[in-house]
C-alpha cells in the first residue's frame, strides 16, 4: 500500500461511501429477505417465527416448486446453448460482411424493445389462426395444418414457445458481445497465422476460440443469471398459466408473495433463488478458469 503513497485514511474515506451503499442496497435486503423466509407472514399483519418450516414445505410438499425449478434450469440451458450460435454469427459477420455494424445493430434491436412489447408481439404471432395468429396461418398455408397449435395455452408446448421468444430476443445481445470480443483480437495475430498457413476455421480454432474465452464467459454468466431471473416475459405472455404450466421460480415467488399473500413463503423461494445463483456463478467461474489455463 505504501507504494501508492496514500494514507490509509484516504483509502478508507474513498471506499467507504460505495461500500456502504453496496451493503445497504445489496446485502441488507438479501439478509432481510432470508430472515423473512423464516416467518409465517402475510406481508401486512403480525408475523410469527416458524424456523425452517417454509423451506421444508417448499422442498417436500409444494407441487409447483420443483417443476418450476426444472423449467428455470431448462431456460438456463437453452440460453447458454444459444451462445455458441451467437459466436458463430459474430465470426461470420466479422469475416464475410464488409460493414457489419448495421447488421449487428439490427440484431440488437429486440434487446432494446420493452419486454411488454415483445410479449404482446409474440402473443399475436402465437395466436390461433382464427384470431390472426401469424405462425399458425403460415403453417396452414404451407399445408402443415397438423402442426398448428394454440402455442401459449397447451401445457406441453407453452414453455417451449416462451423459451423461443427469449432466445430470439437475446441472440442479438450475445452476438454483439461476441462481436466486440472478436473485434478486439489484434489483426496482426491473424496475419501472422495466415503466413503460417492458418486460415478460416483453422484460425478460429487456434486464435479466436482461445482468445474469446473471457468474453464467452461473460455471455454465459449473463445468460445463466438472466434466465434464472426470467419473470417479465413469462408474466406478460402467460402469467405462469395455464395452471402453472409455465411457472418459473420467480413467477412462483411472485404468486406466493403477492397473490397468495404468503410473504414469508415467497421470501424462502427468493432465498433459494439467491443461493442457486451464487452456486451457479461459482461453478461457471471454476470451469472457465480451468479452460483459460488450458488454452493460455
Amino acid at each position, binding site marked *: 500500500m505504501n507504494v501508492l503513497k496514500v494514507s490509509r485514511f484516504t483509502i478508507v474515506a474513498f471506499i467507504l461511501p460505495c461500500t456502504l451503499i453496496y451493503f445497504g442496497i445489496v446485502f441488507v435486503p438479501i439478509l432481510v429477505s432470508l430472515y423473512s423466509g423464516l416467518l409465517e407472514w*402475510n406481508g*401486512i*399483519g403480525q408475523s410469527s417465527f416458524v424456523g425452517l418450516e417454509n423451506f421444508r414445505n417448499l422442498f417436500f410438499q409444494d407441487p409447483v416448486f420443483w417443476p418450476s425449478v426444472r423449467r428455470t434450469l431448462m431456460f438456463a440451458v437453452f440460453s447458454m446453448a444459444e451462445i455458441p450460435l451467437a459466436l458463430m454469427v459474430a465470426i461470420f459477420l466479422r469475416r464475410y460482411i464488409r460493414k457489419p455494424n448495421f447488421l449487428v445493430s439490427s440484431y440488437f434491436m429486440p434487446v432494446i424493445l420493452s419486454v411488454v412489447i415483445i410479449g404482446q408481439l409474440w402473443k399475436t404471432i*402465437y395466436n390461433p389462426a382464427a384470431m390472426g395468429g401469424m405462425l399458425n396461418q403460415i403453417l396452414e398455408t404451407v399445408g402443415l395444418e397438423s402442426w398448428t397449435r394454440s402455442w401459449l*395455452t397447451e401445457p406441453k408446448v407453452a414453455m417451449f414457445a416462451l423459451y423461443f421468444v427469449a432466445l430470439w430476443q437475446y441472440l442479438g445481445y450475445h452476438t454483439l458481445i461476441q462481436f466486440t470480443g472478436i473485434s478486439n483480437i489484434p489483426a496482426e495475430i491473424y496475419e501472422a497465422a495466415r503466413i503460417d498457413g492458418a486460415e478460416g476455421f483453422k484460425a478460429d480454432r487456434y486464435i479466436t476460440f482461445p482468445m474469446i474465452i473471457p468474453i464467452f464467459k461473460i455471455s454465459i454468466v449473463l445468460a445463466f443469471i438472466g434466465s434464472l431471473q426470467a419473470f417479465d416475459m413469462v408474466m406478460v405472455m402467460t402469467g405462469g*398459466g395455464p*395452471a402453472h404450466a409455465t411457472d418459473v421460480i420467480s413467477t412462483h415467488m411472485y404468486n406466493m408473495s*403477492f397473490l397468495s399473500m404468503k*410473504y414469508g413463503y415467497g421470501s424462502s423461494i427468493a432465498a433459494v433463488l439467491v443461493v442457486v445463483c451464487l452456486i451457479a456463478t461459482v461453478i461457471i467461474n471454476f470451469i472457465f478458469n480451468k479452460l483459460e489455463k488450458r488454452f493460455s
Partner: protein
Amino acid sequence: MVKTSKLLSLVLATTLLLSLAACGGNAKTKENTGSANSGSTNATEKPAEKVEDKKVTITFQNIYPDPTDPKNQIMKKLVDQYHTDHPNITIELDSLNTDQQKLKLKTQAASKEVPDITIVNPAAQMKPFVDAKLFAPLNDMLDQNGLKATFQEGLLDFYSFDGNTYALPDGNNIAVVYYNKELFEQAGVKVPTTYEEMLEVVKTLKSKGITPISIGEKDSWTGSFLFMNMLLRTNGGPGFLQDVVDKKKTFEDPAFTEAVDAFQSLVAAGAFQEGATSFDYNAGENLFKTGKSAMYFMGTWATGGIETSSVNGKVGVFKFPTINGKGDPNEFMLAPGSAFAISADSEHLQETKDFLNYFMLNFPKEAFEAKGAVGVGQIVDGDFAAAGYSDMAMEVLGLFKEVKGGDLAFDNTMNPGTAQIHLNSIQNLFVQKIDSAEVGKEHQAAYEDNNK
C-alpha cells in the same frame, strides 16, 4: 483539459447544490407537517381559527386512471369542486390500474405507509388489512349528513368487521350473461333458460363458425366467477363456501363435483374462444365488444364499456340458467364493488373523513348524470329512461330488482392462499380434462392447508 475539468467541477458543484437544496426542502416540509400535527391537537380546543389557515394534503389512491371512464371524470369533478370550497385542502390523486394498485397497496401496507384514502375489495380480501389495524373505522363519518342511508341495504355488511365499517363501496354489481342479438339471430338460436339449452346454443353457434362465449381467462378470476355461478345453481342456493367454512360440507360434496362436470361440458362443447387462457380481461371483453363472440359472462360493471362499443344496441342480457333443474335464476353472483378506505395512521384523519363524506354523498348524483349509475352501490334518485340510458342498461337495472340473494366470488370468501389454488385449478379445466373428484380433493386439501 483545463476546460473540461472546470466544466466537470461546475457540474459537480451544481449537483451538490441541488442535493443540498433538496435536503433543505425536505426538512421544511417535515416542519410543516409537524406544525400541522400540533395544529390538529390545538384544533380540538379552538377549532374555528386554526382550521382555516392550515394547509392539508390528502393522498387519494384510486383505480380510475382512464380519462374516458365516467368514474375518472366524476372523481376529477368532485375533487375540483372540493378544492374550490376548501382552498386550504389539496387532494393529490394517485391513479393506478387495478393490479398496480393492489400491488402498491400491499407494498405500502408492509411498511405501514397506507395513503390517506385507498381502494380495497370486500370481505375476505380486505380482512388482512383490517386485522392489521391499518384502516380507520368510519362509523362516525357514516352518520354525518345521513351518508349511511344512501347505501343499499345490507351492502355495507361486506365491508364491516365486528360492528365497524371500514370501507365505502363505489358499486354493487351482479353477474349476468350479455349476448349479441344479431349473432343469435344469425345462428337461429334463442336465449336459453336451462343449462342443457345453453349447451345446445353453444354447439349451434360453434357449428356456424361463431365463437359462443369469450372470456379473459389469463386473469383467472373470470373463469372462477363463471364457475361459482354454476356452483350456485348445483348447490340449489347460496352459501356453499360458508358451509365449507362451517365444516358442514367439504369440497368433495356432490354439488361441487357436479358444477365441475357442468363446467367441463361447456369447455368440451367448445364454448370458449381458442387459446382462452392467454387472453387477459380486456382482450376477452374486446372480442365481445367487437362482435366476434355471441355471449359474455361478466359483472354488470361491464355495461358502460359495452354501451360505448361497436355492438351497442345489439346487446341483451339474460340470467344464468338452472343446471339439471337445480337453482334459482334469480340468485346471482354478487359483486359488491371495490371500496374507499381511510388509513388509520392518516395525519389528517378528520379532513380525510370530511372529504370522503362529501365525495360519497355526491357520487350517485354525478354518476347518474355521467350515465355511469348502473351498478352504483347507493340509492340513485332519478328516472333512468328519461335520462337517456340505453335499453340494455334498462334491462340490467330491471334484473337488479329481481335479485333474491346469491354468493360472493371465491376470492372474496376464502383467504388468498386457498383462492390462488382454486383459480389455477379452474384455469386448468380450460386446457385439460380432469376427473371432477380430483378437483374437489385438490380444493379440500388446499383449504385445509391454508386454514391450519
